[in-house]
């Protein structure tokens, strides 16, 4: 008798488990860059002041990502439409251009949140008015941003 009632109990449990699904995950993949100074062979974290950044978007007007901020870390969205993202970094009234070359892979975050782009960093080119060097620390840029995750170091 008790065994026969088991399917009924399971149906009740199944119905009671139905919940509304809400997306809590971020669907934007952003490159994390940390500013560093390099003095002879010693590197250290630094806060850059009066930093403005915009992306170079073909056929679109420039739109600032950062506007005269003081920061040690910047988050840069990469272009999922192309395999290259270009940025202009303005510091102390001097512009440096950053060219990030990446491979793009679209992947499913979840059935609730939909798709996002995974960027695999291949190369970073730059002008060197202010920038001394750039080092790739982690070449995978996706929506999951772990604590202390940094993709590139920009040396001044």
């Amino acid at each position: 008798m008790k065994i026969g009632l088991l399917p009924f109990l399971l149906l009740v449990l199944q119905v009671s488990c139905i919940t509304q699904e809400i997306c809590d995950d971020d669907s934007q993949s952003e490159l994390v860059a940390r500013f560093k100074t390099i003095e002879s062979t010693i590197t250290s974290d630094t806060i850059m002041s009066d930093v403005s950044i915009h992306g170079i978007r073909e056929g679109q007007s420039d739109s600032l990502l950062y506007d005269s901020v003081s920061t040690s870390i910047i988050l840069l969205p990469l272009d999922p439409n192309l395999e290259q993202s270009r940025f202009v970094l303005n510091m102390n009234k001097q512009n440096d251009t950053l060219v990030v070359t990446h491979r793009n892979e679209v992947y499913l975050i979840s059935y609730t949140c939909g798709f996002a782009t995974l960027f695999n960093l291949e190369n970073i080119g730059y002008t060197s008015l202010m920038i001394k060097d750039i080092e790739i620390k982690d070449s995978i840029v996706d929506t999951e941003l772990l604590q202390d995750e940094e993709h590139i170091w920009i040396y001044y």
Partner: protein
Amino acid sequence: MKNISGSIISSLLLLVLTQPLAGQDTLRTYGPRIGIDLARFAYIFADPSEIGAELSVDAEVYKNIFPVFEIGYCYISETGDLFDYSAGGSYARAGVDYNLLSVTDRSVHHSITVGFRYGVSLFSHRVEDAFVPSAYWGDVIVDTYENNLTGNWFELVGGLMTEVTPNLFLGWSLRYKVLLNPEMDPFVTPLLVPGYGRGTADRGFGFTYSIFYKIPLFKR
């Protein structure tokens, strides 16, 4: 609800019919038993709707030991705000059931079984019009993504089966399933692994409610 009431009836019948009746044939009937899973049809009302069918064949090859072979097909399709998705394919499971019910009358064929299955599914899934957001650079729409996949899983099975009239059985089973290759598609986790269930979970439960007919080849 028909499944539930049918299962309750089959369970009650099992309890009543396990007692030997006076003048009953004491020979045991042997032959392949062919079943169809009726619970599959209820999945049409699931969200997303799942269309499929499942057949099984088993036979008592040795005392209380039943090798089992199950085959099926299922398909889902859903249209969403962020993307459209479909998946479908066929599957097969093979395993063994062991009957725990002690036989007081050899002509009675009810059973309470425990067993296992190994399952393989060959299927494909497809994403269309996937929206990939990029607030700064501009959103991307991916037209089509398709992949042919193979799923493997293992099941522990417990079930109950009642012979409601000679050679005609009703029975249900509960299954605990472990997906052996949940990373089969690194870009899009399949929503459906036919025969297993939701590919987004590497553990899951399953339920069947089946009607069977045993082809009586011989008695012994």
